[in-house]
């Protein structure tokens, strides 16, 4: 029990350190990016010298990145995530308003991707037909080659939901892993023997295959969350979906430091939690198996 607590505490500390480091790195990169100190509004010929100066001074406030980051952390501890420079709204409000759409998009996309991947991978493992395997390899390979932005544009053109684009971006990655794992599992001598003795496919799958492949599949599922989060940026930006992905795109274009730091921290947190969750579940499954 004590060691479990120690493990959890250690994991939480690692997670916190990684998230904070991710935020700091993001802030540093944005600060060093060309164009950080410029403001498009300076080009408005109506603005007089004092107003242009005020715009520049506002940008200078975030000039010292360490000072910015510590002041950000201090405010964040009190629930204030800052104000977006580009949109002029509190970051907290922006994230809160846009998170539901991204969550729906990601969960639907991931669910579709995994249903498709597992269905095809299982069928491939059961049938063991080289033609079927070749066909699925070609299909998944094709989707792997198509850039995420192209899939997003196609979804706009054909008026299909953005979640389908996410699913098709995640699918080839998850399918290859799932297929290989299942193939290997079904090649194990005891499973081959069980099948030859006429044991039901469902029993083989749930009693002999799932316990073997579950930990690795869960790990892949964790990774697929990161892939989906990455895919959400071009999909939301190109499909005009007002989620966190679109916000990240706008923030990057506008060098919006407060918004980018918060989104980086959020994405790091989601990715780490997904992977840690998958690892923990994998360990549980392994433990039960043992």
């Amino acid at each position, binding site marked *: 029990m004590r060691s479990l607590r120690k493990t959890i505490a250690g994991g939480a500390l690692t997670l916190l350190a990684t998230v904070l480091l991710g935020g700091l790195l993001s802030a540093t990169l944005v600060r060093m990016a*060309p*164009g*950080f*100190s*410029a*403001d*498009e*509004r*300076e*080009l*408005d*010929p*109506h*603005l*007089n*010298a*004092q*107003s*242009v100066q*005020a*715009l520049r001074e506002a940008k200078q406030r975030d000039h010292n990145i360490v000072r910015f980051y510590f002041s950000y952390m201090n405010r964040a501890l009190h629930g204030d995530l800052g104000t977006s420079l580009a*949109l*002029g*709204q509190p970051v907290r*409000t*922006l994230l809160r*308003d*846009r998170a539901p759409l991204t969550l729906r998009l990601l969960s639907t996309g991931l669910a579709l991707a995994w249903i498709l991947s597992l269905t095809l991978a299982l069928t491939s493992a059961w049938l063991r037909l080289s033609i079927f395997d070749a066909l699925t390899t070609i299909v998944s390979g094709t989707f792997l080659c198509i850039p995420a932005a192209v899939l997003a*544009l196609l979804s*706009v*053109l054909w*008026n299909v939901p953005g979640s389908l684009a996410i699913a098709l971006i995640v699918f080839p990655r998850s399918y290859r892993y799932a297929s290989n794992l299942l193939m290997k599992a079904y090649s194990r001598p005891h499973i081959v023997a069980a099948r030859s003795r006429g044991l039901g496919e469902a029993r083989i799958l749930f009693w002999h295959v799932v316990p073997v492949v579950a930990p690795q599949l869960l790990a892949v599922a964790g990774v697929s969350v990161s892939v989906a989060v990455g895919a959400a940026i071009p999909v939301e*930006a*190109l*499909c*005009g979906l*007002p*989620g966190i992905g*679109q*916000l990240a795109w*706008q923030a990057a*274009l*506008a*060098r919006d430091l407060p918004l980018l730091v918060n989104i980086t921290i959020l994405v790091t947190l989601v990715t780490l939690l997904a992977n840690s969750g998958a690892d923990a579940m994998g360990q549980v499954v392994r433990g039960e198996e043992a």
Partner: protein
Amino acid sequence: MKQHDRGSKQLAYRCGSAIAVALICLGSLLGQLSAQSGELRFCLRAEPKTFNPLKVEEDSSGAIRYLTGGVLVRVNRQTQELEPGLAQSWKVSKDGRQISFRLRSGISFSDGTPFTAEDVAFTVQQLMDPALHSPTGDAFRSGTGNVETKVISPTQISIRFPSQVAGLDRLFDQVAILSQHSPKKEMAVLGPFMVADYKPGSEVLLKRNPNYWKIDEQGRKLPYLDSIRLDIQPNRDVEMLRFKRGELDLINSLDSEYFDKLAATSPQLAHDAGASLDSEQLWFNEVAKSPIPGYKKNWFRSANFRRAISEAINREDLSRVVFRGHAQPAMGPFSPANKFWFNPNLKPQTYSPDAAMKSLQSEGFRLENGTLKDKDGNTVVFSIITNAGNKSRERMAVLIQDDLQKIGIHVNVVTLDFPSLIERMTQSFDYEAIILGLTNVDLDPNGEMNVWLSSSDSHQWNPQQKTPETPWEAEIDRLMRAQASTSDLKKRKEAFDRVQEIVVEQQPFIFLVNKNALSAVSANVHGAAPVILSPQTFWNAERLSVPAK
């Protein structure tokens, strides 16, 4: 029998007439009902940053201000003339420092709060707050000191500025009046529509203002529309796709490529209103402290060199190839579309590589094996930067590259994302030449005061000069200040005509083209008459109607 027949005929005639009148009335009623309903739908290309009309600094917020804000006077986007709005009449004093308004009575804000002169005074005081730093407020700032407002009666007010403001009355076209007393603050409006709902990143819903004061010629209350749904859609491909699917009714500032595609399939939906006020221009870096080699600075600071480059650029080709004929070769700082302020004596810039070569030779440049060299033997090569993603600018840069190659000049075209480009242009001055555009919202040259004054930050080719570095810049400074310090329109015009001539002589900006105002309007929209001034398609939004779904 005959009598009976005649009586029957009369009866039938009367019945027929009555039915006809009834049908006409019914038709008119139905027409009125259909005219006063429906939802117009179009896109904003970015999230509106504010709903406070005094803080507007970008197009999306500007569109909302135009649709919701009540103004004292309005520039008619079709005639370019000033028309009464909330003010029935107004008068600018001879010294150009004071303006007096007589307001309409019996008008209320959208929430029912009465509109009085106190609201105008409140709005002006808010607008002129130095801490606001708004482009609208800065346009009124011509000198130091406070603005004085004097409420004479609930329908009369005079506003006195510390020094003369040229074109003072026209500036009020951008000032949406706020309520001093409404608890809804800036959400209480006097314009035809009011903000009913805002879903960040998704849409802004405007509903008809029930207290809007205007009526049409038939005595019907304006606006005709029930609502306007503004979808926030940064992606122009998606915007066009949705227009084609019938999900949108209007598109402003259409790209010439999309325009031609639409015109090919549905010519009645594509509108070309002619040359707009917007210009596209190329300029060289003339900043003394810029980190570019000294010999290049010498080229760029030579008027002969700039004139030669201008003569070597084929503007007709730019219009024909890049804008598919939907642009006009630019003649100078102002487009001919600006009916009053354009200098009609300006001639189209001639394309003549031979004349360009002669100008360059007079400066000591020479051609060696097809490569131009300066008098010290330096190869003439420079880079043009422009903003990545702007297809027309990228294409213009490539055509200019080809044109200049003909006189032995090698040009590198570099595209940068906008923030990087602005940083180089305004802070590090690390560039050689830039292609960018100037979006003119104002008709009055005072709107460009900061572009032409040598001391200004927006004097792009060489900003923030302590004293004018060239005699012609000193002359432009003098002329711009002179035109701003008189309310005599003739004198102002003379001064600004001369500014235009100097700019064409000296070519600090090499004006390339004036783009046409292209737009798309769905067949569902009645009353649309796209114009060159912003907002092109919905300038008369209160008179637009779409059938109710």
